[in-house]
């Protein structure tokens, strides 16, 4: 087994600035409210994790425990203040379905645009185009502008593009509940198929039953620290026990 994700002692602090305006800043300074100008928030503290290729990992924890922030560090959207993040192979995020979709473009244009944004080459998109449309069950509407799609169609197409990007490491954030029940089942089956094909999955979801279904390993975060790392069932029962 080779390492897919290696995270060593990363720290991330957010500075929550309450104002950028010079006038307000001056007024607050004069009134002795200097402390209100900005506040620091420690999102990740000295966090280390290793993920091997082929592992399916669930990041669990309450709201604000740092799950999504950690995912953003793995995808490279955010950089740590200290420590290192390294990834092997191509990483793609199903971080928010439809980020990069433009309502005024047709479904076809959006497939190309979104595929390219997620790192696919022109030939890859052309090869997989039919399969993407078929999976999304969009059919003849592919040349219609996306703004006329129902929300279900929109999500199905976006999800379909994302699962066809074929990366080595898949980052999934709260998107498994897509579309109606039959399509949700289809998505889940697709995700499991990817896992079975040896893809690495890192999943963030509050749907614990679903996570237990998809992942083998669970990592529990609290206030930006890993407090438990083990089989997903054990981690979930600890989370529920709390």
């Amino acid at each position, binding site marked *: 087994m*080779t*390492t*897919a994700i*290696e995270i060593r002692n990363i720290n991330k602090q*957010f500075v929550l600035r309450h104002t*950028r305006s010079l006038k307000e800043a001056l007024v607050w300074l004069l009134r002795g409210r200097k402390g209100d100008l900005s506040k620091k928030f420690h999102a990740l503290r000295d966090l280390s994790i290793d993920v091997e*290729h082929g592992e399916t990992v669930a990041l669990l924890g309450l709201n604000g425990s740092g799950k999504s922030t950690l995912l*953003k*560090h*793995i*995808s*490279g*959207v*955010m*950089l740590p203040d200290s420590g*290192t*993040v*390294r*990834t*092997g*192979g*191509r*990483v793609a*995020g199903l*971080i*928010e379905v439809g*980020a*990069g979709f*433009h309502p*005024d*473009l047709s479904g076809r*244009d959006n497939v*190309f*645009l979104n595929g*390219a*944004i*997620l*790192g696919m*080459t*022109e030939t890859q998109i052309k090869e997989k185009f039919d399969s993407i449309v078929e999976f999304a069950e969009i059919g003849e509407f592919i040349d219609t502008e996306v703004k006329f799609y129902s929300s279900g169609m929109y999500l199905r197409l976006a999800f379909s593009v994302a699962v066809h990007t074929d990366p*080595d490491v898949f980052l999934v954030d709260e998107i498994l509940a897509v579309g109606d029940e039959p399509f949700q089942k289809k998505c889940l089956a697709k995700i499991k198929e990817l896992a079975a094909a040896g893809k690495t999955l890192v999943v963030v979801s509050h749907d614990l039953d679903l996570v237990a279904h998809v992942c083998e390993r669970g990592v529990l975060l609290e206030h930006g620290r890993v407090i438990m790392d083990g089989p997903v069932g054990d981690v979930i029962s600890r989370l529920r026990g709390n």
Partner: protein
Amino acid sequence: MTNGRTSPTQQDSGRALVAPGTGNGLVDVFRSRFLLKLLVRKELRIRYRGSVLGLLWTYVKPGVQFIAFYIALGVFLGLEQSPTNRGGLPNYAVYLFSGIILVNFFTESLSTATRSIVNNSGLINKIYLPRELFPVSSVWVSAVHFFPQLFVLVVASLFTGWRPGPLEAVTAVAGFVMIALLATGLGLFFGSVNVYFRDSENLVDLILLIATWVAPVLYSWRMVLDKAGEAWFAVYQLNPITIAVECFHHAFWLPTTAGAEGSPPNLVTVWVPVGLLVSLAILFLGQWTFRRLEGRFAQEL
């Protein structure tokens, strides 16, 4: 942050561990040409969506601007040469239009590039991709809007007796490249600063307001030399927009006149290389600033 490794958006041949989120700036933009092409196409499709005139607006805007300036400055303020006004510029219409379209290219590029990062926050927040793509595609879109206007200029110049030679073509290309580099550099700079301070947009609007006036678009460079003297004129000439506009005058307008006015001394031999160097320096400064600031884009947007 620079490292020689492949960015994660590329197909990695092996599975060597690399740090995500650290790209190679404009080099990565070149590697993601396909995505750049799609972003430009998207922008062109949606810019004038729902409007009747559509892309024609790119002709209407400079057209109206041209007519207003021509009447106000050429006719009323007497900048155009006529039998009763020997001191004016011959073929003032061509003179004016060649400068206006170039400055408009700059104005549109910089204005959209400055807003491009904030406007694409939805993507930048969620997916890692070379973020330089957004300012670069803004400049590219403006270039697509620029070329039809250039075509109008070429036709107008041909009607007024323009017979282009190779030197004219080279100076025109140099002028265009100068503006493209300058707009990209300033766009990278102000676009990244805009994430932290939205004042940046207003500052850029201010710069664009005076851009037409600090370059010899409406008046002749000779007036600056006469009033300001040699030393200040040299300072005036350091502005790449000034040099680029003079390049366009040299290429499109000067051959249609009897050569009476002439271009500033040493335009091609000294000032064109100087303008290109200044633009390149600003591009490097813009890229450097962008790279310093982009690490925190996702959390600030």
